[in-house]
Every structure is written in C-alpha cells, then in structure tokens.
C-alpha cells in the first residue's frame, strides 16, 4: 500500500475511533484518536501494517495530558503519530506493552515522569528516577516544584 491507501484504509477502518487527522507533510501524519481505542488502532498499525514503534512522548499541556505514539511505516517512509488526550484528574490508558515488548520501558518512564497509569502493564516499576524520590511527585508535569531544597540534584548545578 502507498501512503494515500494507508491513510484511507485507517480512516475507513477506524471511523469511530479517529477524532482528527493532521496531514502535516509527506513524511508525517498526526492522528488524534479516542483513548479507549488505543490498543485496537496500535495493534493494527504494528501487526498488520508492519510498522515499527519508535517511541511515545507524553506531554503535559496544562489543561490535559497528551501522549503521542510514534510509529514508522518504513516501506512508505511515513511516521504516524497517534495522539490521545487524557483527563488530568485521572490520567490512565491501556498498556501497549502487552501487544509488543518495545512499549514496556517507555510506559514505565511516562508512569514515573507524568503520573499516567497504564492499565494492564506487566511490570510498572520505576525506570529512571531514584528510589528515594517521593511518591506523587512527577518531574515532567507543569506544576512540578523543587521538593528537596537541600538537594544538588534539584538545583541543576
């Protein structure tokens, strides 16, 4: 399938799930989907389209959280970024780590950095933050405040 066919195929297959599509450039397309559809759409893109999972980027956009799941379809040189918007009060979404192992670590990272809960993740331990980091402090959130005034680590020295 070429680029247009892939996009049309996604649109017809997931009419219910897709909220918005931004066709940014020849190599980039951003598709906003409903959070509850993520496993279905991601499974199709990964297993059936044969895309590779690049990574996911979690963003705190003040009013809500956003996760972008980047997939690259190498045959047609196209990066499909699935965008989901999550409620700030209860940020949670289904885990993709059960579909492919490549999503395991990044979900652990987003869990500790932004406090997003991944339902069904096999092993949601901390990945990068130290053991003495307090619960409920998420460094990549907008409202993050320096929590340990005596710590060199927090001063960026």
């Amino acid at each position, binding site marked *: 399938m070429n680029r247009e066919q892939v996009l049309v195929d996604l649109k017809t297959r997931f009419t219910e799930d897709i909220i918005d599509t931004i066709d940014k450039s020849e190599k980039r397309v951003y598709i906003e989907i409903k959070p509850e559809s993520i496993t279905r759409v991601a499974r199709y893109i990964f297993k059936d389209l044969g895309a590779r999972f690049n990574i996911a980027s979690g963003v705190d956009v003040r009013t809500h959280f956003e996760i972008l799941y980047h997939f690259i379809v190498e045959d047609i*040189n196209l990066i499909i970024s699935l965008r989901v918007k999550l409620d700030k009060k209860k940020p949670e979404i289904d885990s993709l780590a059960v579909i492919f192992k490549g999503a395991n670590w*990044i979900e652990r990272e987003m869990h500790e950095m932004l406090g997003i809960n991944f339902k069904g993740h096999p092993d949601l331990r901390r990945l990068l933050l130290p053991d003495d980091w307090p619960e409920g402090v998420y460094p990549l959130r907008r409202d993050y405040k320096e929590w340990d005034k005596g710590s060199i680590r927090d001063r960026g020295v």
Partner: protein
Amino acid sequence: MGRTIVPIGPYHPLQEEPEFFTLTVEGEKVVDIDVEVGYNHRGIEKLSEQKTFDQAVFLVERICGICSTSHPFAHVRAVEDVIPMEVPERAKYIRTIIAESERLHSHLLWLGLAGHFLGYNTVYMWAWKLREEVLDAMEMMTGNRNNYAMFKPGGVRRDINIEIATEVIRKIDSIVPTLNMLKKAVMDDPVLHARTKGVGVLTKEEAIDYCALGPTSRCSGVARDLRKDSPYGAYDKVEWNMIVTQNGDVFDKVVLRVLEMYESIKIIKECLLGMPEGEIDANIKSIPPGEGIGHIEAPRGECFHYVRSDGTNTPERHKVRAPTFMNLPTYKSTIIGETISDATIILAAIDPCYCCTERMAVRDTKGKKVYNGEELIKLSQAKTEKLKEKFKC
C-alpha cells in the same frame, strides 16, 4: 533481588551509561536477568525546555560523548521539521560526513572493547589506534575530538575547505590496510568463531517485537536502515550498501560492524569529493508554533527527537529517545540460557557503553556467589585461552 544491588550511585567519572544488571544463575547457566538504568538520568528533557533552540543543540550534544553527532543531528532535524524546511545542499553533505566519521570511530571503539572482553587485547590496541586517526580527522574538520558543535538548526557552523578535505581523505585511507587485517582476523580466527557463533542469538521475531534498532536488528535479518528507508542528509546521493546479516548472534554483530565501517569510509570519501558549492546555513529567523520529529540512524540505531514549539524561542516539550533505550531490553531474550562466561560479550554485543558490564553482579540461585565486572571479563578471557589451546593457535 534488592539485596544484590550495589547501594552507591554508580557514577563512573570516565564512562557514561551506568547500568546495573542482576543475573540469576544456576551453576553456569543464566536463568534470569534484570536490568536497572537511571543512574545517569540528568533530566535533559526538562532542562531543554529552558534552553533556546540554538542552545539546546549544545545540551543534547552532551547526552553522550560517543554519540555527540547523533543527538544534535536528530534534534536539528526535529526543529527543521517544525517549520518545515530543507537545509542547503552543502550543509547536508557536511552533516553526512560528520555523522559517518562518528559511526566509524564508534564502531572502532566497540570492536576494541569486544576484543578486550574476549581476551584479544591486540585487537583492542589496534582498533583504538585506528580510532585515533578518525578522531584526528574529526578535529581537523570541526576543531574538536568530541562534542563537535557543528550542528545548528538550518545548517552547520563550519565549512570544510579543500585542504582539510584532502587531508581527511588521506587519514581515512590510511586506516584501510589495518582494517583489512582486523577483518581477516575476525573472519578467519577459529577461536573467535567458537566463542561467538551461535552465542546470544536474537531472533528476527524478537527483534521486531522489542522494536530493536540499528545493528542489533540488522544482524537478525531485519533489513532496515533509516539511511535507506528515510534518506536524509546526502545518503541518497552517494553509493553505499546496507549491511544485513541473518544469524543474530555475537559473531554476526561483530562482522556487521566491521563491514559497516567500510561503507562509512566509502560515504565519507564520496561526500568529501562530491560536495557542491554554496551556503552552509539557511539562517532560520524564528520557529513557528507546531511540532516536529527528527530521527537519524546513529551508530547504535535510530536516534529519535520530538520537539513541540509554542512560537517562543524555547520548546514546550522535547522528547529524546536514544537507540539503547530500545536495544537494552533485548537482553531478556539473548542472555537467558547462556553461560556466565559469555554474558559479558552478549551484553556488550548491542554496543551499550562499556560501564554496563563493569556494573554487573552475578549470584547463584542460593544467593551466595557474586562476581564483579572484572572477574567476569577474566572468566571470559580464560574461556578464550582454553579454546586457543584446543585449536593450538
């Protein structure tokens, strides 16, 4: 598990990427592995939100000392993708030359370390001597042996003139005879074959499932290389081959990297000779609101940056994904079932940084015996010595 973890922050002043592995073994056999990372987490993504797009290049350059081209390259491509724009042709060629020289020195560094782990200290010395030549060439082109400061959104900071180009070609050519010797040594040595063939196999299915990248996936038969699939820089303008091997074991990983070096030499020379004249910088005035993705093929695999701009001179979000982030978890499928003496070389085979193996601890299921990194390297070298006697060489 918690008891075996070394309780001090494993910072090593000389090396980057400290990681902590806990291997569970039964007799000689590895039955489980757990890896801990994060000792070197410096909050670069958060820091980058406070830097302007120009400053952030210098910041991401310092993520890794070896990959000090990959991160800036991916980052500037992400910033350019926000606009979106194309950089001048000459800048593309210069970027390609720098990126390939980096691949060359990175692979040489790895080859040396692999030799050391296996008990071939001569390979280690030779490879690192060759690497010096490449670093000298880098210094001539950029002014620095590492952290080159060549990249900026829109182009590059320094031009390469004809005198430097000739000298660089001479330097690069001078390493080829020794590289041929090393290649022959790798291909013909029966001990090396016995040590690395069929060891630490990553199957094609697993490589896809783990989303493994670069040489780690290419040696398992996944014929994917961003330089071919999603050409950037001058990669679509020069002749070169993608190297793919099929077995996924340590031997294939060595061979693949050795062969890739020849391709890099080819690309560097062709780019230096074929550089078009013209501007090297597009002079970007401002970055509009929007988001951009930049990815390049680093020596270890795809390096991925995502940048979101809100129209000011600093990004709203900057996501960095280094290739080892995807390659590291493959340990789970390569190391279980192998012996401890092979563990070091399997862990080194995906080319994480050296200190990974330094930080490894081994215990048996009864929780008693613990090896440290040095003892493991000795164990690995002793196995090679035994094989050398067996093959009488």
